[in-house]
């Protein structure tokens, strides 16, 4: 029964194969949605059922522990939520819907493998499975060329960072003669003062900086966010970010609190926050705005990781969850407002409070949560991250981050202003949400506010999960 701990992976593999077969038969795509929704819901159940399991497979290259299982749970939830958005998958041709679900599933599978991999090559293979699914997903949108630009940008920068990462892994192997994370965490702390090990670790991290859209690997984010279909963007913006945070935490924890690494990460965090927030100030397109806000949030999340203490890693896990919830809610609004699958400018949110009060409230919560205003989950996440950094004495970093928060509020408030204050040029019809969509929206509001007011259990879970880190 040893393979039971492999349950979520096997399940998602089976789902992927199922969609592969469906895609070959080219049937009516309309039934795909209900199938996918059912399978995704079941996937959440399967994954959550295995949260408590622990074990090791493939000679230590693959380990199942609370840390990996918590993230697999988050991934399956993220996958489910994104599938929930696909009831009007108008950005993608109907004939391709099965392929869309297939690629979405393989991508999720890749990330699940990634978060459990304890060995550099396994990690690389899993990451490539994730990336190649996304390379195909991004340009899948039907439209006039914008998606191709996004796809090519994503692909080129993706393979470039893959190359960097491979080079880094090779250096790490050369320095430590091992590819196992467990052995790395013994050998690496002593070796990090040598350039080869240090550069090796840093370049290995680059692969995940890319996924997190951290400066200087952020250039793909605005184009991809805008160019990809809204549902794909929602997936890129939530699930892949969560996993990047997890992997960064896992890799950085092998360095055992190395100060030079921390300094490099501090620099990246500050630049990323500042750059993302400043450029976001002038954005007109809502998805593009979210892309720059994601760059800024990559910086905030990194603060937790670079603190390199248990509170910091736990804060990063908490932040990952918070980020998933609030970003998803933004995309929920995007998908519902742009029901024909187009991009929306911020100004097109005008009159939302009249068209759908519930969506407007959800947007208010999500945007204020992104801006870090209590009592939302986003504030609690930032608070935890800052506490961790302060424990290491990074006062200035916290102050810079807080100033960034205030800067970011300017553009978040523009979104609120559009939704609550501005009136559209011509009268727009009300947005009718189906009852399940209503429940989903209300649930997201509850999660965002509830997670901010009662962070206790979530934080304890995060704290327990990071004990599995070296």
């Amino acid at each position, binding site marked *: 029964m040893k393979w039971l701990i492999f349950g979520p992976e096997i399940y998602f593999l089976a789902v992927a194969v199922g969609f592969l077969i469906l895609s070959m038969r080219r049937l009516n795509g309309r039934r795909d949605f209900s199938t996918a929704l059912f399978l995704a819901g079941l996937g959440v159940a399967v994954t959550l059922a295995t949260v408590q399991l622990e074990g090791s497979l493939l000679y230590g290259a693959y380990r199942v522990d609370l840390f990996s299982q918590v993230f697999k749970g988050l991934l399956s939830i993220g996958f489910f939520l994104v599938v929930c958005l696909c009831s009007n998958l108008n950005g993608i041709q109907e004939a391709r819907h099965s392929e869309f679900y297939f690629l979405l599933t393989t991508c999720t599978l890749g990330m699940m493998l990634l978060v459990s991999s304890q060995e550099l090559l396994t990690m690389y293979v899993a990451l490539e499975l994730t990336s190649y699914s996304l390379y195909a997903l991004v340009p899948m949108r039907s439209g006039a060329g914008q998606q191709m630009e996004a796809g090519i940008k994503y692909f080129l920068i993706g393979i470039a960072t893959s190359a960097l990462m491979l080079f880094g892994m090779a250096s790490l192997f050369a320095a430590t003669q091992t590819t196992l994370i467990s052995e790395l965490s013994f050998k690496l702390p002593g070796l990090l003062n040598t350039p080869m090990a240090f550069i090796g670790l840093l370049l290995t991290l680059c692969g995940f900086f890319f996924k997190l859209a951290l400066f200087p690997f952020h250039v793909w984010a605005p184009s991809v966010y805008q160019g990809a279909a809204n549902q794909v963007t929602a997936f890129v913006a939530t699930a892949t970010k969560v996993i990047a945070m997890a992997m960064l935490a896992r890799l950085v924890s092998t360095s055992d609190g190395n100060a030079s690494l921390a300094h490099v990460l501090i620099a990246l965090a500050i630049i990323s926050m500042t750059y993302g927030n400043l450029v976001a100030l002038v954005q007109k397109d809502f998805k593009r705005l979210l892309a720059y806000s994601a760059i800024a949030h990559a910086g905030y999340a990194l603060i937790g990781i670079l603190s390199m203490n248990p509170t910091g890693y736990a804060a990063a896990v908490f932040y990952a969850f918070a980020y998933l919830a609030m970003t998803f809610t933004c995309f929920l609004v995007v998908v519902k407002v742009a029901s024909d699958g187009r991009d929306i400018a911020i100004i097109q949110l005008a009159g939302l409070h009249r068209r759908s009060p519930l969506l407007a409230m959800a947007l208010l919560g999500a945007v204020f949560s992104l801006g870090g205003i209590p*009592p939302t989950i986003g504030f609690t996440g930032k608070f935890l991250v*800052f506490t961790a950094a302060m424990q290491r004495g990074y006062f200035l970093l916290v102050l810079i981050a807080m100033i960034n928060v205030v800067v970011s509020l300017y553009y978040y408030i523009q979104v609120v202003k559009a939704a609550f204050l501005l009136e559209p040029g011509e009268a727009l019809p009300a947005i009718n949400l189906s009852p399940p969509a209503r429940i989903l929206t209300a649930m997201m509001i509850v999660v965002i506010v509830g997670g901010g007011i009662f962070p206790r259990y979530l*934080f304890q879970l995060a704290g327990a999960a990071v004990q599995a880190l070296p």
Partner: protein
Amino acid sequence: MSMEFTGFPYLSAILLSCVVGLLVILFIPPERESLVKWVSLAFSGIALALSIYVFCAYDRAHGGLQFVEKLLWVEPLGINYFNGADGFNLPLILLTGIVHFTGVLTMWELRGRVKEFFAFAFVLVLGVFGFFMSMDLFFLFVWYDVSLFPMYPLIAIWGTTRKEYGALKLFLYLLAGSALVLPGIVYIAVASGLHTFDILALMQAGALTPGQQKFAFLLFYLGFGILAGVWPFHTWSPVGHVAAPTSVSMIHAGVLMKVGAFGILRVGIFLCPLGWEYWAPVMAILATIGIIYGVFVGLTQTDLKYVVAYSSVSHMGIVGLGLSTVTAEGLNGAVFQMFAHGIMTALLFSSLGYIYDKTHTKLIPDLGGMSKVMPVASGYFIVAALAGMGVPGFASFWAEVTVFISTLKVYPALGALAICALVLSALYMLRVVQKTFYGQRNERFAHLPDVSFGLGLPRMILVATMLLFGLFPRLMLDLVQTAVIPFMGGLPR
């Protein structure tokens, strides 16, 4: 889960009445406007009744922290849900109850998006109540921000003059303040080595070194000072006051600015007493400049709301001056002044709001002779203006006298300057009263109705409160004294 409650949780009940009020309003269909108003009135009434009860039931002979409610919230971080009432926050809890209740009454004639207005107002007041009663730094900050963010929609949607600009400026300024406060709070919790956000635990002598206290106090003073309207960080306040709808101006000037001053007191002074003593002269100078500046800028304004707004800057300077004396009388006067100014300024904005609603102008040259058109409405404004000048018989007289006596002892020169400035303030208030309410009657407004009994009710409550505490100042001073004396006695010297 460890819990500690001394009897019925009255303080949480106040918060709960706001939460329940909010939820009930959210489930009322938006077109049933009068129902929304009645529900708001009912729940703000419950909150007011509870705050009056807490104010009266506080055992003054015993003193200390009473009505304590403590609940472990996030154990690994040392966060507690910890509420308590003492002589410092009771006046302000009462103030919030009164101003919110009268604010709801003042907005009785609101049209358009009524449901959202009262919903946001409940969020705002919830944050303010929570802030005043919280004894845990984490919650204190959460409540602080909860009270700030509704200001943006409240002003930007229902406001008047340059409302979007005013709302945005106010919002960004106040959150910039929180950008200093949050690092300060986390710094204190971590630097003390106690890993708790419990204010009482952090107050223990020796938790922070003098250097840490000086540094952290500066963060708190600047961060909360923005909200308290400390010169030169006050510029958001006149713009915001003028743009805001009447009841929001009332809550804003009456209560929210006190949140800033109280933050300096509860967080800055409580946790960093050495920093307080170190920075006190700077506080005194900034406060005096604020008083004088407010008076002189107020003298030249032609917009009634700007006049009142600058008088707020000036009066909040008196609070700052009281805090800066580092004496028991100074603290006592400062807390009393927070209360007195809150009531007075709420009355000013409330009576002005009525005149604006009817005439649609608040420019002094356009008005004139209003006391012949609407004698009762004008009466309320004149009463408030007299209170603002510090005429004996009103609460603010005692507060100002207490502050000035203690200031003259500690900073004779600054105190004398501030008193001179306040004499001038009498001049500008009288100028406004004379130009607006006396003189030639403006025929354009001759047909306008005077304030009715229902709409006059909130103003009557406010006048009555001012008179009550003006005629019996010991009701307030003795209460504050129960907190000030042990606190000053416990300071490290």
